[in-house]
């Protein structure tokens, strides 16, 4: 069906559109329903992932204690109330996989790309609703397979979420590399299909289905972020598919792409020869590094939108934000080697990767400063979404700065695979992205479910989560600097590491607190879905197009014609307007003398306040901050 025909149909039929249960809730092709499906699956996967992290934190904090409940829960993996070392590895692996792929890639980008791309761009639906539906169901299948892998007799995959061969290729090396690993690979292959279907759709929609007046430079930053994310995904996930394919061949057919010169205890010298385990790492990290930005960029996009809306202020440096997103995206493809400094790679290659890696710090710094400048002299409304966005900025700064240590090849010799790495990526990519996701949920909940969430609970959720996240991850920097390796089952056998026992306990208690804090969220989320206050049309007084659609969310999004866009998305607090926002779809009351041209800053120059053109604005800013003026 051509898109035009689709539109015509929607325009005439949307009111009496009666759908069966299955086509409305299960195999739905409506992007809003698909985004709900992604979100709720993501939340469930997130709970599983978080539960796993609590389990292994328990082991790290009280390695000698026996928890009877663990035996009840885990059966043979929790013999005598202690987690089995092999299962510990499995927990670490599946926690990482779930969080990176299922929660922060599909749950975050899948949810909000699906929800916001059509709504904020003024499209009736995605370019291909059918592919969109397939994307969700592949994701669902993949989640089901991964969850099943936890229950197999030999345990889930346990070679770390990066599943480096030969460990992941040899069943005899670790029990998790048997059926568990096979299921892991199947799950990831399905996930890649899902993510490609989704990504292709997002790009296609962004490029082809914008409403009248929605030129690229009037797109909200969320859309820019989703757009770049989708491009990264389409370019990098096939490479992971290649890597996984080789691994599958090595495991199931006995080829030697990654295997060479291996002798296994109890088996003898293996026949496999000629391969290279490091090849897998190259292929994996060619995806793996962009994947980090696939996770982070949607969160940054959401934050830009939420901060701008709730600061009642245009986002500072819209163009700079886009350029830095673009810079990060491009650079992310050529820095994968910084995960492999100590694999014995050519030292010169290492230097090149180091230089490229540290260049990423510049666009990232620009983004952080731009967020700060957006807050400066704003009029901040602390909705839960806003708080989570501010939390994201805080994590992004504190986690991003430690990237400067790790990107430095020389310092990486000491810090590689230590707790410093754990602290770094949990702050900058884990916590920051999760906070972006929470910000998105709180902000667009009214759009997703037509109900409001409870703000007070949101505040509690935020402060408990924020504090506990810092308590969990900040002390890990110190452990890492002291040379404590990650993925250790317990530290009691090494005196050097045993001195950190009190810190480990603190971290675990904080983690449990953080886990408990999610009860606020879960209660709030599920309770509000059916008993929340009915949402108003534009609860946050936002500029973007999604708030012009009916609250109940109809198929085809807009009952009548799709609104036309007249300006950029961030025109808050315009001095020439009574109210402090100016929705994109409202035409100017006083038509400007010259219409804004494409590629030009959409703000009319005459309304720029004095301060911004002042020559010594930087010092003025400092003075103002210090209260001197």
């Amino acid at each position, binding site marked *: 069906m051509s898109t035009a025909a689709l539109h015509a149909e929607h325009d005439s039929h949307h009111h009496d559109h009666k759908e069966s249960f299955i086509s409305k809730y299960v195999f739905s092709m409506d992007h809003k329903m698909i985004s709900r499906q992604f979100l709720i699956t993501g939340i469930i996967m997130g709970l599983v992932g978080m539960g796993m992290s609590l389990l292994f934190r328990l082991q790290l904090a009280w390695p000698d204690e026996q928890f009877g409940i663990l035996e009840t829960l885990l059966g043979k993996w929790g013999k005598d109330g202690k987690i089995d070392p092999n299962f510990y590895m499995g927990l670490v692996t599946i926690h990482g996989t779930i969080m990176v792929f299922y929660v922060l890639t599909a749950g975050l980008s899948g949810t909000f790309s699906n929800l916001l791309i059509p709504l904020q761009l003024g499209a009736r639906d995605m370019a291909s609703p059918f592919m969109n539906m397939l994307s969700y169901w592949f994701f669902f299948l993949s989640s089901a397979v991964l969850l099943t892998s936890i229950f197999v007799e030999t345990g889930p995959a346990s070679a770390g979420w990066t599943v480096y061969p030969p460990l992941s290729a040899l069943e005899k090396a670790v029990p998790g590399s048997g059926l568990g690993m096979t299921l892991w690979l199947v799950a990831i292959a399905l996930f890649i299909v899902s993510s490609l279907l989704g990504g292709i759709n997002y790009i296609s929609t962004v490029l082809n289905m914008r409403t009248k007046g929605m030129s690229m430079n009037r797109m909200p930053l969320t859309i820019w972020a989703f757009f770049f994310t989708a491009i990264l995904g389409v370019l990098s996930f096939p490479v992971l598919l290649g890597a996984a394919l080789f691994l599958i061949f090595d495991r199931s057919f006995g080829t030697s792409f990654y295997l060479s010169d291996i002798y296994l205890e109890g088996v003898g010298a293996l026949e496999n020869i000629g391969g290279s385990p490091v090849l897998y790492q190259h292929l994996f990290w060619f995806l793996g590094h962009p994947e980090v930005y696939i996770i982070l960029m949607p969160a940054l996009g959401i934050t830009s939108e939420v901060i701008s809306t709730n600061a009642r202020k245009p986002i500072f440096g*819209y163009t700079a934000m886009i350029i830095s997103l673009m810079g990060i995206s491009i650079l992310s493809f050529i820095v994968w080697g910084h995960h492999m400094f100590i694999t014995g790679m050519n030292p010169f290659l*290492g230097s090149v990767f180091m230089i490229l890696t540290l260049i990423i710090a510049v666009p990232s710094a620009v983004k952080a400063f731009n967020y700060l400048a957006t807050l400066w002299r704003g009029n901040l409304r602390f909705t839960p979404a806003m708080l989570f966005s501010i939390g994201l900025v805080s994590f992004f700064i504190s986690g991003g700065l430690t990237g400067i240590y790790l990107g430095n090849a020389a310092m990486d*010799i000491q810090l590689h695979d230590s707790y410093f790495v754990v602290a770094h990526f949990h702050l900058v990519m884990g916590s920051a992205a999760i906070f972006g996701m929470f910000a998105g949920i709180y902000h667009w909940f009214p759009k997703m479910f037509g109900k409001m969430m409870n703000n007070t609970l949101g505040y509690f959720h935020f402060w408990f989560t924020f504090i506990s996240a810092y308590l969990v991850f900040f002390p890990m920097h110190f452990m890492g600097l002291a040379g404590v390796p990650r993925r*250790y089952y317990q530290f009691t056998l090494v005196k050097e590491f045993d001195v950190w026992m009190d810190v480990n306990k603190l971290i675990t208690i904080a983690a449990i607190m953080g886990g408990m804090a999610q009860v606020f969220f879960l209660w709030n989320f599920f309770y509000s879905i059916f008993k929340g206050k009915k949402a108003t049309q534009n609860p946050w007084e936002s500029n973007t197009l999604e708030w012009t659609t009916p609250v109940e969310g109809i198929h085809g999004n807009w009952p009548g014609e799709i609104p036309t866009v007249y300006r950029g998305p961030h025109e808050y607090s315009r001095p020439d307007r009574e109210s402090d926002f100016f929705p994109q779809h409202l035409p100017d009351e006083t038509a400007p003398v010259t219409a804004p041209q494409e590629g030009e800053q959409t703000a009319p120059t005459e309304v720029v306040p004095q301060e911004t053109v002042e020559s010594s604005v930087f010092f003025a800013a400092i003075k103002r901050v210090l209260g001197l003026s």
Partner: protein
Amino acid sequence: MADISKFALLKTLFWFRKMKLNLFGVKSNSLFKKTLAIFGLMLTPIFLLAADDVVAPPTEFNPMAWDWSSILILVLAILIILVIARSFDIGSLTEKITGKTIVSWNNVNAWAGIIFLVVGLIGVWYEMKIHGKYLKLGDSASAHGETLDSMFYWTFGFTFFVFVVTEILLFYFMFKYKYDKNRKAAYFFHNNKLEIIWTIVPAIVLTFLVLRGFSTWTKITTDIDKNSEEIEVFAYQFGWKARYSGDDKQLGTANFNFISGTNPLGVAEDSAVSSLVNELNGEIKKLEIIKASIEDSSKLWKAQYDRYVSTGMSNSYPEEFKQMKSKYNDLISGAYERQLEKDIKRKNTAIKRIAAYQKDHETFNGTAKDDKITTEIVLVKNKPYIFKYRARDVIHSAYMPEFRAQMNCVPGMPTSFAFTPIKTTEEARASKNDPEFDFYLYCNKICGAAHYNMKIKITVVGSEAEYKTWLATQTPFVAPPAAPAAPTSPKADSTAVKQGTVVKN
């Protein structure tokens, strides 16, 4: 294992029914109910997928053995949270009814931000004070480590400054610009000067850091003393072994095909390798006998199996029956035979490969005879070393935090790391004020169940003499012959350059 699927199914059904009861009469719940229903449907296949031999059977259902106190505490904690949540709900309801603002959440959050900032910064300071003393910074036991530490301090200075300033700004802005309905936010989009400043300044600082990092990295990885002594460090699941070259100052070649019980590192030494070949031939013969008698044994197993079924022992000894059944199935389906064939083929390949090497005098040049395989590493202070890493089975990582050294050990890809220890163990003990302190080399790449306990002790001694005494106590691979080693041919000399590298086919 049908019972777990059944259990799951019953549970799901029960849940569905309960759901209906709970939600009955709630008007706006249709969406919610259906979303839940979708998830019920989504979860069912997971349980159904968990088919027979896949799922670990649950241990016997014995609630008395459960840790009820923990469960109660958990439940209580959740209840308390919910009660708090509920009370705030009521609070907001009161606000709505009375029309008065009880709490201005905007102010509360702004203040909370400030409090968080202050407490957080105090926490950072406290953390540095308390845990700073455990950090290994500035206490490097290797020469290059000191450069790394100084670089760390530079980076730390820069990042910590940025960290404190930006976090203060963030929370200060949060406080200063909290919502006021009488105020309007500033309206500006960008400021080129400001943006250029905060692009250029980080760029300059990073250039400085990059240049330092570049020179340090290049120095560590490429500037290697030609006179360094080579020690082979061998990683396996789950431990380390070291190999010192003996009197000839040459590490003998080694290959994974030569590894056997008596030759754990697989060094190229004639007698050990020939005995391995014999061993392999013996194993092949044994396997072939088993293969030949496979028909008889499957009959035997069938008889056993039938007896279990007919006498009802299959019910009373389910574990044994299960094992027997799987073995019997393997025999019947031919899986067992295929496995045997595979093993025989693998062993034959190994013999073939070894035979190819045995013809090659570069490999078997006799330098391995006097190599000493040790279970600890002893180094001499201020003497340059190259650690040559090999891994037997999976990737390991040789991590020596005290020496600021780390390198992956990859099967099939020899790696190395060069460094010079500058502190003896005794000195380190004195400076750390810990008489029991020792240097260790840890594994730092996930490698299996005992990854956390894979380490080897490193002792740094002050003088060559101490080292010699220790080395003399270690036995060489082959007990030294009466006569000195034969003079090496020019061909062997040329291989000496590549000494210690792993031979490939």
